[in-house]
């Protein structure tokens, strides 16, 4: 089967990404790991739909490819609003 090497590589990489997500240490490392895990999922779904003989299920991979970016943007927004909150709280403490 021509797909096995790539599938194995993807699965191992997913595991590695999980290790990074669990270890951290910073929040950004975790976000990086999640994002990377997301792209690996897209690839895995694409390959798996051929592996399982149903290439019409590439829709799923496409859906993930489109939606994956939203998570990162939400994280960015979260960091930003946290920054504002911190400044705001800081200003209050100063008063």
């Amino acid at each position, binding site marked *: *089967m021509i797909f*096995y090497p790539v*599938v194995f590589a993807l*699965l191992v990489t*997913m*595991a590695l*990404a*999980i290790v990074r*997500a*669990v270890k*951290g240490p910073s*929040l950004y490392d*975790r*976000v990086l*790991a*999640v994002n990377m*895990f*997301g792209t690996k*999922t897209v690839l*895995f*779904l694409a390959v*798996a*739909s051929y*592996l*399982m003989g*149903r290439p*019409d*299920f590439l*829709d*799923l991979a*496409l*859906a*993930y490819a*489109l*939606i*994956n*970016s*939203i*998570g990162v*943007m*939400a*994280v*960015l*927004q*979260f960091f*930003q*609003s*946290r920054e*504002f*909150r911190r*400044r*705001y709280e800081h200003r209050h403490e100063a008063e």
Partner: protein
Amino acid sequence: MTLVFGVFLLTLLVIVAVAIVRSTNLFAAVMLSGIFSLLMAVNFFLLDAADVALTEAAVGAGVATVLFLSALALTAEHEQVRPGGAALQWLPLVVAFATGGLLIYATFQNPVIGDPNAPVHQHVAPWYLENTPELIDIPNVVTAVLGSFRGFDTLGEVFVVFTAGIGVLSILGLRHTLVEMTSAEIDARQRSLRHHLIPRVVGRGMVPFILLFALYVQFHGEYSPGGGFQAGAIAAAAIILYSLLEGDDRGRALVPEWLLQIMVASGALLFGGVGVVCMLLGGSFLDYSVLAEVPSEGQHLGLLLIELGVGITVSGVLLTVFHAFARRASR
């Protein structure tokens, strides 16, 4: 061989779940939940549940992460660590282990996974597979069962979503605690990610494609994985992306709140209305066969309309919920 992949991914799932529970940083827990959801979806896919995997994609990767992050931004990012608090608590542990142990005890008499002779595959399910081509005449049996054979469940599902929508609106939407901020701060919050030029340009370019894909999922759901719920979630995700990039105010200008409220109510009403029309035409509730001369065409029409209703309500509710949280943040 897919079985081995499945076992590997399921093991990862357990590891991630343990990591989520152990982490005291809630942001990390939410990120890991995102991974949990992706793993779950891959497992669903390997177990032949393409529709469910698509739903998990739209919900888990798109909407749930955004909701949890908005809530975290409004609450706290860390669990408070108490002296001795990190230790396992015995009573909950015993309860949990008793429950899990009981289930594992039960599994040894479960039918083996994939066994075609298991009772699940004998009684009702084969009837759906045999009769869908003739009665409903669409390739996606999941959509047929979801929309027609068990359409009443789906009606209930739409109303669950509707309840959550009005619930969040009632709990968060109306009473506000005012936080004093300088106008610069309010301005900065409103601007959102507008000053991040690259993400903004790329993200804005993505929005129409995501919407287009949502339409495809909505109207192609009878032939491929998808349907109203997935489409609604994906469409909502597109608007959420736009709101994240351009600021919540512009997002709300794009789809104003009065429109959202009408969407929330009208989708549910459309679904129920189709059922009532079926009754008026002499069938029983949700019996789409009476909608056209040929029963299977009636089924097609009915499915199209109810899926539309589902899609409208779901996207309306998800956006309402998102705005309710986001507006809290910008006050």
